[in-house]
């Protein structure tokens, strides 16, 4: 059977680039999740290189500012999303209220999970210096982090979700900036240390 299907006569004629781009656009329109290049290639019976070419054509057509929809590379695949131009109208039509921004507790907790995953709740609490139950619960509720098992001490451990990557416009977790970028400079660290010590000296003198 399969050898028959692979026979040259049964092979579909190679899809021209434009038609392939149309198919890819249709697939991204239908798919509820971002679609990886490999899956697009399999579905279209094309090579990954051909898909990349089609995606390039599509990216041009859907370049920001041209249409109501833009092409996004997120969460390990490609997806269509609306252009910000339509945000207000879309929220009115679908009565989808704007999601509230992250609170500081939520963004700190999310950063810890994103960089250290899988990470347990006690570890999050140790770094933040406060029990972070409510932030963890809200982030779980919003689908940005999820439980991914238990540590050997029995604590629930967390990781980020695919939705996190999508909503933060990340192609993958590797697209997160290097955390050392957020480290204080050696000068800042020295200054902080000196401030601690100076405070001590002032107190013991006074």
């Amino acid at each position, binding site marked *: 059977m399969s050898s028959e299907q692979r026979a040259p006569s049964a092979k579909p004629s190679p899809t021209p680039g434009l038609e392939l781009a149309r198919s890819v656009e249709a697939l991204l329109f239908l798919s*509820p999740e971002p679609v990886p290049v490999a899956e697009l290639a399999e579905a279209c019976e094309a090579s990954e290189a051909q898909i990349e070419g089609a995606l390039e054509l599509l990216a041009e057509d859907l370049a920001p500012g041209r249409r109501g929809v833009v092409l996004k590379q997120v969460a390990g695949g490609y997806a269509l999303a609306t252009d910000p131009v339509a945000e207000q109208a879309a929220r009115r039509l679908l009565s989808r209220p704007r999601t509230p921004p992250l609170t500081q507790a939520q963004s700190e907790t*999310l950063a810890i999970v994103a960089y250290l995953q899988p990470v347990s709740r006690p570890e999050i609490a140790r*770094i933040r*210096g406060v029990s972070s139950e409510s932030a963890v619960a809200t982030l779980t509720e919003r689908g940005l982090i999820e439980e991914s098992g238990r540590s050997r001490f029995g604590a629930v451990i967390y990781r980020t979700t695919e939705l996190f990557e999508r909503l*933060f416009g990340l192609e993958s977790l590797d697209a997160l900036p290097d*955390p050392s970028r*957020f*480290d204080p400079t050696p000068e800042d660290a020295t200054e902080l240390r000196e401030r601690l*010590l100076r405070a001590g000296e002032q107190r013991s003198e006074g």
Partner: protein
Amino acid sequence: MRVAELELDLETFSGPFDLLMALVLREEVSLLEVDLAEVVLAYLDHLEREGELDLESATEFLVLIAALLELKSRLMLPRAPEDLDLEPEEAAEELLARMLEYRRYRDAGAHLAQLFAAERPHLYRSAPLPAHLRRVSLDAARPSYEPLDLAQALGGLLRVPPPPDVSHIRPTVSLERRLRVLRDLLGRSGRIDFDAAFASEDRLTQAVTLFALLEMYKKGEATWTQRELFGPIEITGQA
């Protein structure tokens, strides 16, 4: 109870222990101004109230309070005695390391919050697949169901449940008594409307009354008329 939840009411700070730790880490409360002896006393009070010693949280408390004490002694006495377990320098470095670690994630979090704000105006589609993609295509359809199941389902629908079993119910309505009632009523007025006389009776009584009526008809004592289907039945005595 976890140490983190230990409620403190100090001169400079009021709230749970973990909040105190957080404020110290954020440099919002000066360790120099916190009376650590009071913290220890509060913890001892708590132990007394609970009446039992939770080893795990006691250990956690001791580690935390020891780190704070050593750091504080280092802050207050630049030349600290040598006999402390944790070198004052180490204690300060430990707290400093934790402050720096916290700052890293605070700033990374701020970056994430920016990404989130920038992406929020993009909305994604979430719609079910069109119906034709949700069902088998005609070309791909293979026999998957058994036609006999349909015939069997139809047979089940032709089945009528057996009438309810009433053999355990003893009739308590006697024909004699219904005959007496009918003769009595007819004797008084000569004419009865069946519904007016018996509609409030139960079905069994009504049925036995009908039997009694048939008996009277047979004997030539009474006859009845009904002008239309389900219409009123009028009984006339024939003396």
